[in-house]
């Protein structure tokens, strides 16, 4: 199988089904093959030739070797790959936690690949909602306070913060647990708090890194239902995972291998190939 950066395997005939239309291969190819040009506002994420290398004690590790990816608003995409495939590096770049050595990254029509640390912090705050494998809640803070945190850094007033945090907790059915601390919540509840926190700033993308990695299969299903619900409501969701059955929840699956995109399929094609 040769790497195919524009995902030609996607069955374009199916592109119009589902709650929100997926981008077609041709559309993606068009937007990726225009280096230096700001993509249409409809494209939340466009990367062009993204490269990232690490210097590990003199040895250069090429984690990403030129990744072109285009994700349209309202898409629900899983990024899959074995460990060492570069999916974590890609997630860090997409999440604006890191900058590429080479290539362009356009987030919501803005070139973010060359931004300073503080500018990236602002972008993370406004555009990205993180959901982590280990939840990453502040242990001493209540659920409500944890959800408020991104708004604190956005400079939202205390009253407004509280109101919006409560709304976000209501979206994940945790209104009755908002005064509890993380250690008083179950794993699934903790992850739902994390999802509420990711949503509270109305981000352009919800970026989940192995969101079910620390959960049992029943709770995993529960969390995946939350993501499904959000995707149906129109939230752009990007989920990084190494589990094929979790990736199969997304409508589109991008598989990475050795720092390059190996495949970019619709769910049906993916599940068929994986035999799920």
């Amino acid at each position, binding site marked *: 199988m040769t790497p195919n950066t524009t995902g030609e395997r996607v069955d374009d005939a199916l592109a119009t089904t589902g709650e929100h239309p997926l981008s077609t291969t041709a559309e993606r190819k068009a937007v990726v093959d225009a280096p230096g040009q700001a993509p249409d506002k409809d494209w939340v994420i466009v990367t062009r030739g993204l490269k990232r290398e690490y210097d590990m004690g003199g040895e250069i590790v090429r984690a990403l070797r030129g990744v072109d990816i285009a994700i349209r608003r309202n898409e629900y995409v899983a990024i899959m790959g074995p460990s060492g495939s570069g999916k974590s590096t890609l997630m860090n770049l997409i999440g604006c936690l890191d900058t590429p050595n080479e290539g362009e990254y356009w987030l919501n029509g803005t070139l973010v690949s060359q931004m300073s640390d503080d500018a990236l912090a602002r972008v993370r705050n406004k555009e990205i909602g993180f959901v982590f494998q280990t939840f*990453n809640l502040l242990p001493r803070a209540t659920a409500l306070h944890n959800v408020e945190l991104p708004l604190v850094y956005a400079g939202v007033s205390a009253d407004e913060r509280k109101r919006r945090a409560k709304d976000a907790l209501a979206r994940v059915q945790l209104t009755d647990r908002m005064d509890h601390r993380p250690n008083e919540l179950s794993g699934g509840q903790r992850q739902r708090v994390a999802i509420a926190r990711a949503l509270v700033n109305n981000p352009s993308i919800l970026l989940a890194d192995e969101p079910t990695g620390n959960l049992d299969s029943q709770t995993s299903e529960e969390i995946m239902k939350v993501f499904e619900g959000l995707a149906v409501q129109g939230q752009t969701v990007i989920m990084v995972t190494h589990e094929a059955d979790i990736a199969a929840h997304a409508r589109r699956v991008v598989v990475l291998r050795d720092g390059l995109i190996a495949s970019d399929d619709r769910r049906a094609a993916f599940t068929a190939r994986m035999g799920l």
Partner: protein
Amino acid sequence: MKFFEAVRLALSQIRVQKLKSFFTLLGVVIGVMFLIAVVSIVEGMSRYVEEDFAAKIIGKNTFSFRRRPDVNVGNVSEETWREYSRRPRIYEPDVAVARSALPPGTVSAVENMTFAYANSQYGRPRQVQVIATEPDYFKIKSYNLTSGRLFSPQEAQLGTPVVIIGTEVASHFFKGLDPVGREIRVGGAPYTIIGLLEKQGNVFGFSLDRMVIGPYKSTLSRVTNPRGDIDALVVQAPTRELLDDAMESVREVMRGFRRLPPARPDNFALETSDAALSFFDELKGKLILFGTALPAIGLVVGAMVIMNIMLVAVAERTREIGIRKALGAKRRDILSQFLVESATLSVFGAAIGIGLGIGLAKVVAAVSPLPASVAPWSIALALLVGAGVGILAGMYPASRAARLDPIAALRQE
């Protein structure tokens, strides 16, 4: 609002880890405690000097015309002493000339003073402060009587052997008796007690209640000034301006009377409380400087400990920093969070130190003759110092936290 959150976080940290916080803040607590105590004691002394010493020993809006300064503060060189002793003594003609120059409204009295033994038939001989003076002296010094009377102009004129005594003289020589009307012997000669001064208290351990005051014209002057000279003419003016005028007039007529050419300095002294006060101000500055140098070492140690603890806190909370950064905290946000936290810790320590320092000052005041007065500015200063120490100590740990790479920080277990 982020500020208050950081403050609340720091306070909850203190609450959760009481013992650790106590040791963390020990340096700052002790430093601030001694800072407050030293400043309070020095301030108390200076209040004391200004209000009690200056007012009681020298008198308000008062100057004295004398051969040489009575209150010699600091080091007086041998040369100066020699110059002092070459000066002519003051006799009645000098006083008369000086008095002639006083503007209306001023009050004056000669003052001859020494220490001599007194005795009565009820008490053992004891040294007392003997003052031979004129009736207006009581007005100038604001000396009031609890019983008896002052000496009359006639008694002053005739030099009648009558005296007014202080409370300690009364209690020593006439224990359990009413001294008024009884006899006291000073320098061998008998005097009738006609009045009792109200309690004056003491200045720097020097009692103002061991006085025996009699008329200048009486034989008491032979005890104080056997040569027949006069120690001083004390002048009080109603206002500061009139006091300056009076001093200048006296200087002028005395220079004329003593035929001093313009190039020669005065061969007499016009002494006000200013000299003593200015010397004390200088002394106060030095006391505060040295008195705070030691607590400052405590503060430096305190700062080191806080810095250490903050470095540990940053290491322990690396993941939290990563989370905050992922959620959009800028470097400045992380920096200020840790700075506010270490400043809050330190200010908390300073607050405890202030409380203990005030207590210490009170204890010192209670068990020693040193007075203590807590200056509001010293409390404000201590809080500022506390905040400053916290911010300085927090600078390095906070900047390390702010520079953390979010990815590495999030990976930390």
